[in-house]
């Protein structure tokens, strides 16, 4: 059984301190630019804030993982290079990368700092993962959320690096790092500009029946009844109308959150080294509650106790939870 490192999100310095105090083993975060996949307004860290946060985390025995997990467009690589150099100067413990060019730069320039392969790289086979390990010295792969636990166990047996899996947050069934839905609707790229459904193009409208419509750019992507739980304004979670479904249906995914708290023992037994909680865009309240719940659960599993599982349903999208493909690929 692995140690089950708890990898927690932070969108602000206050959230980072909250995560550390709630029991995070490591915290992932990003700069205030397109070098990370949560380039949202008012979120993320200035270099000064990151420097202080690294000091705080290290003083409490926690580690900082800097997300540089977007893909540099042609002619703009300098921004990613500068972010990597800055992160190294500030003492981060690892870089989370998706792009091979960024991985190669860090492997060559900062060889003493760990490289983690982001889920944005969508590496789901032993061959792909071994390539990254061999070429760039990747120490950990964050697996896509499309694998069952038996499949994870098989992959673990064939790769020479650590495995990290998501345990709470977005269900994430898209081929991550390849999604162009936002690009199609808005002209901005999730994978290069770092923002899925950019907030300045999201609009919520109150309907005549006291319901709510969600729009992204020129498209209405969902409509909620007055008492109906809402979800994020992403195209993949939208409901659409066609001749077969005149009242609308979820064409891609549903607003539902992944929650693997019940599967922690099985995941640790399968060789998962680290557990990722999603939510850099979420509040300190979310970070505190979710991190504390999973800290207690992981500690219980480590100690051979039945994990006490806190009720996190109120924090889930659509107020619904799933174990997704980890339990079965027939989840829907």
């Amino acid at each position, binding site marked *: 059984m692995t140690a089950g490192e708890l990898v927690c999100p932070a969108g*602000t310095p206050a959230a980072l301190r909250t995560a550390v105090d709630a029991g995070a083993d490591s915290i992932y975060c990003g700069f205030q630019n397109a070098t990370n996949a949560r380039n949202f*307004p*008012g979120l993320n860290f200035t270099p000064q804030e990151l420097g202080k946060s690294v000091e705080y985390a290290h003083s409490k025995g926690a580690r900082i993982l800097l997300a540089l997990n977007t893909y540099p467009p042609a002619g703009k690589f300098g921004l990613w290079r500068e972010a990597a150099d800055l992160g190294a100067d500030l003492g981060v413990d690892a870089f989370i990368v998706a792009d091979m060019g960024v991985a190669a730069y860090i492997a060559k320039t900062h060889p003493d700092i760990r490289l983690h392969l982001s889920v944005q790289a969508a590496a789901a086979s032993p061959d792909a993962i071994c390539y990254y390990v061999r070429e760039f010295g990747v120490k950990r792969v964050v697996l896509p959320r499309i694998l069952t636990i038996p499949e994870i166990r098989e992959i673990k047996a064939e790769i020479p690096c650590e495995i990290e899996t998501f345990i709470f947050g977005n269900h994430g069934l898209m081929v991550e790092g390849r999604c162009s839905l936002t690009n199609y609707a808005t002209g901005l790229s999730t994978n290069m500009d770092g923002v899925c459904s950019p*907030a300045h193009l999201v*609009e919520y409208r109150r309907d005549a029946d006291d319901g*709510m419509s969600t729009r992204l750019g020129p498209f209405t992507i969902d409509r909620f009844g007055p008492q109906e739980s809402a979800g994020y304004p992403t195209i993949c979670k939208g409901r659409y109308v066609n001749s077969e479904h005149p009242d609308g249906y979820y064409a891609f995914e549903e607003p539902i959150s992944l929650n693997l708290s019940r599967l922690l023992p099985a995941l640790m037994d399968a060789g998962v080294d680290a557990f990722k909680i999603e939510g850099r865009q979420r509040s300190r309240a979310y970070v505190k509650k979710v991190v504390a719940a999973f800290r207690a659960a992981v500690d219980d599993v480590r100690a051979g106790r039945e994990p006490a599982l806190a009720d996190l349903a109120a924090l889930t999208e659509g107020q619904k939870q799933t174990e997704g493909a980890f339990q079965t690929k027939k989840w829907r």
Partner: protein
Amino acid sequence: MSDPRETFAALWGRFADLPVPLLPLQPVLYRIVRRIAARHPELFDRLGPHQRTNFIIDLTDLPLALHLRPNPRALVFRAVRKDRLPRHDAHIAGDVLTLLRMLDAEVDGDAIFFSRELEITGDTEAIVTLRNALDDVEGSIAEDVAAMFGAAGRMALRRMRDMAHGPQLESV
């Protein structure tokens, strides 16, 4: 003995139906926002261009709304009538307790949006930015504000929290 939550809820409900004279509130609100700005200047860096955005905060259980423009050089925070809202870019609606709990990081903004306790319209980016900036403020803004009004302020805050959570132990 009557439940203090019921008593306060009844009073609160009656208050919500009364026409509120707004003028006496304005200097109090201005004092509050000045205090928050003085104690948390870093908040404005996160707001960036939305320092100039006009927000309406619609208190759904009170007969008034709040107009906020978080420009540190020309702060606006005032009570306005719901039927005479000033021009604004972003509109946030929720009951007082829910908004206070979000302000103090007791509830997650996304979660109360999912559950429809929080309604937003207008400039979504401005609202997301404001939420993120406020969430980076550690400590309790509500307690800071309550402390400005001494024992009465602290008691009012405690009563409001009682309504949300049930009665709390007195702090020692």
